[in-house]
């Protein structure tokens, strides 16, 4: 069972206590943007075999949205962090690099 620590309330929550919310750090397309930009924002996904940044909600806990970095093949969790960050934090990038020195960053 996947276990993530909620960065707000500190609870180590089973996946049954959490709601998955898809890829994180998507840049919202807005008025005046091209159809391609909307398509990319709404539908195109990295869906990597490897490190994935994703949104989760502590649905049956504090109710807050947070972010996680997780490996989609090994299911290893590198850490969780608060949602109010437009890019992966320095700490989370360091945690990934420590385990995967050859990781080239977000594609």
């Amino acid at each position: 069972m996947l276990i993530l620590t909620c960065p707000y309330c500190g609870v180590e929550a089973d996946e049954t206590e959490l709601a998955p919310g898809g890829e994180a750090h998507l840049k919202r397309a807005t008025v005046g943007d091209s159809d391609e930009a909307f398509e990319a924002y709404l539908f195109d996904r990295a869906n990597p075999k490897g490190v994935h940044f994703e949104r989760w909600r502590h649905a049956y806990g504090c109710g807050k949205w947070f972010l996680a970095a997780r490996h989609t093949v090994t299911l290893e969790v590198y850490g969780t962090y608060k949602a109010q960050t437009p890019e992966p934090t320095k700490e989370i990038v360091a945690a990934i690099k420590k385990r995967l020195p050859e990781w080239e960053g977000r594609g």
Partner: protein
Amino acid sequence: MKRYSAFAIAREALRYHTGWERAWGNPEPKKRYDVVIVGAGGHGLATAFYLGKNFGITNVAVIEKGWLGGGNTGRNTTIIRSNYLQDPSAAIYEKSRSLYETMSQDVNMNVMFSPRGVIMLAQTHHEVRGYERTAHANALQGVDTTFIGPEKVKELVPIINIDGPRYPVLGGLWQPRGGTARHDAVAWGYARACAGMGMDIIQNCAVQGVETEGGQVKAVNTTKGRIECGKLALVVAGHSSDLAEMAGFRLPIESVALQALVSEPIKPCMDVVVMANTVHGYMSQSDKGEMVIGGGTDGFNNYTQRGSFHHIEETVRALVETFPMISRLKMLRQWGGIVDMTGDRSPIISKTPVGNIFVNCGWGTGGFKAIPGSGWAMAELVAKGEPGPLAAEFGVDRFREGRFIDESVAAGVAH
């Protein structure tokens, strides 16, 4: 290639089965093919089959990283139906269902197609309205379905509990021509027929890179070396984003795990397929007597071919409520497959930003039923470079244009 027939069985019985040939070869890749298909699942193999059969293109290789049929084609619960809502879906799924009727003859291998009938239970008033609407749509599309009442459901499925406390059965969408087939035989039948046409099926060969030049495909790099190709078809289900990345584009796909399980074999007790979308479970009985059970997908991206255990619990709970007599049945095996989900729950059969690369993916939780129809449509796209009528609506550009083929209701439960 010698034909399989009743006569062949008798002949081989008389000579102690010494005369059977290999069903397909184990060739080393050639330097170049007119068409390279990545992925020897049902869809990749059916594409190859119809390239040969409908278009006479036989300088074809199907490249598979594992063993053929070892992906979702060999992991699914084999439900075949065509009672979708939208016209483009009904067209391709009904074409596919009808091709299943003659597949054993077409590929000269018994695929055990069993049109035993499929019921989708309506357990809320919302579902009753939804399925009545689907039945009307199907009538206009020429797909044979009817909405039946709870008594008729009970008559078709004596082991069902129609007045459960939470979700009583209010009726069902009944497709008498739906059913099941033997999944491995579908892959093997196409593979043998393709080998018979002179195509190469190259197993244990992973594609690791795609070479392009001036926006056109040139070759693939594999664990068995570089293979040049005139055209390239990516038919790799849950691995589509990975292959697209090698070719330099993105797809509107997310890969998640879907699980299934089977029970110990029991005496015949249910001769139709029953799907319960509200409680999220479905069940049929295999010819061996096992109850074949499937449920929901995990909500997060995953490439492990293992799902989360709580989904099994949810599925079993739902089915025990629907079929109380299975409550003491022992489960024998459980497994997972990586399914390729699109936003509108409809597939992608499409050209791509790279010249002469074509994709067929996004069948998600429900593409076994679509194998022959999808292969038919994909072969036309690859052969002509432009989609024919079956594939036209399924282009990837529909996401940019907002032209969705919304099947989130018809595909309510994973199947």
